């Protein structure tokens, strides 16, 4: 009887309390819709306007872009973005001369380090730009990447 009562308690009020507590304690990161207009934009300015809503972006050398200066095959370009800025909650990668300049937009939980690595396609020799949001403000760094054979065809 006692055990049954305990199980009932767990399943009922207990579960409600737990989930309430959980919501309070949990850092807020929930799945949000992908910003389609930003990804469809064909110009860098337009893509940035769509995703950052015209917020000012400060140049910063506290963001590191790990990419080769000269890339043979534009279809597979390893890129590593990291930053020493505090409280980074988004990282975005742009390639200015690609048909759609916005390549990837990462949303980070507060427990994440300011670091992502992936592989992207680069069509033409172009500036690669990384933008991070740190403490609610946007910062950027750019690096030119020379590409021998484009990777979008």
């Amino acid at each position, binding site marked *: 009887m006692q055990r049954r009562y305990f199980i009932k308690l767990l399943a009922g009020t207990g579960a409600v309390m737990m989930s309430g507590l959980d919501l309070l304690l*949990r*850092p807020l*990161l*929930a*799945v*949000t819709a*992908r*910003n389609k207009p930003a*990804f469809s934009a064909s110009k860098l300015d337009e893509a940035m306007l769509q995703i950052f809503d015209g917020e000012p972006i400060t140049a910063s050398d506290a963001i590191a872009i790990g990419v080769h200066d000269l890339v043979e095959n534009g*279809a*597979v*370009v*390893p890129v*590593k973005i990291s930053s020493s800025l505090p409280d980074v909650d988004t990282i975005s990668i742009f*390639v200015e001369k*690609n*048909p*759609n300049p*916005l*390549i*990837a*937009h*990462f*949303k*980070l*939980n507060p*427990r*994440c*380090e300011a*670091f*992502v*690595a*992936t*592989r*992207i*396609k*680069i069509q033409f020799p172009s500036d690669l730009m990384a933008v991070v949001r740190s403490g609610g403000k946007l910062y950027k760094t750019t690096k030119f990447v020379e590409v021998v054979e484009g*990777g*979008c*065809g």
Partner: protein
Amino acid sequence: MARDIKIRTRITDGVATIRCIIRHPMETGFRVDSETGKPVPAHFIEQLCCYHGDELVLQCDWSRAVSKNPYLSFRFSGAQSGDIIRIAWVDNLGEESSKEVKLQ
């Protein structure tokens, strides 16, 4: 269609490093099939989410310009050996897949 997700994990001092590779064509829609001469329709992962237990740790919104068979690596703190990591993606055609592994 079931697609492969390969996940490698490592924990050092409570910081988990996750590396994964997903088997996916990531077609841009710009490529022309050399045999038929017709453009190959766009087919790429639009969103990928990484969970630690039931907590979202990283959301990736991607364009068609992420390379074929995408690779992703990231790190987060507060992890313990045995914790469940789940990676789930959905592409522009509505295909989806997910995989769970234990941190080790």
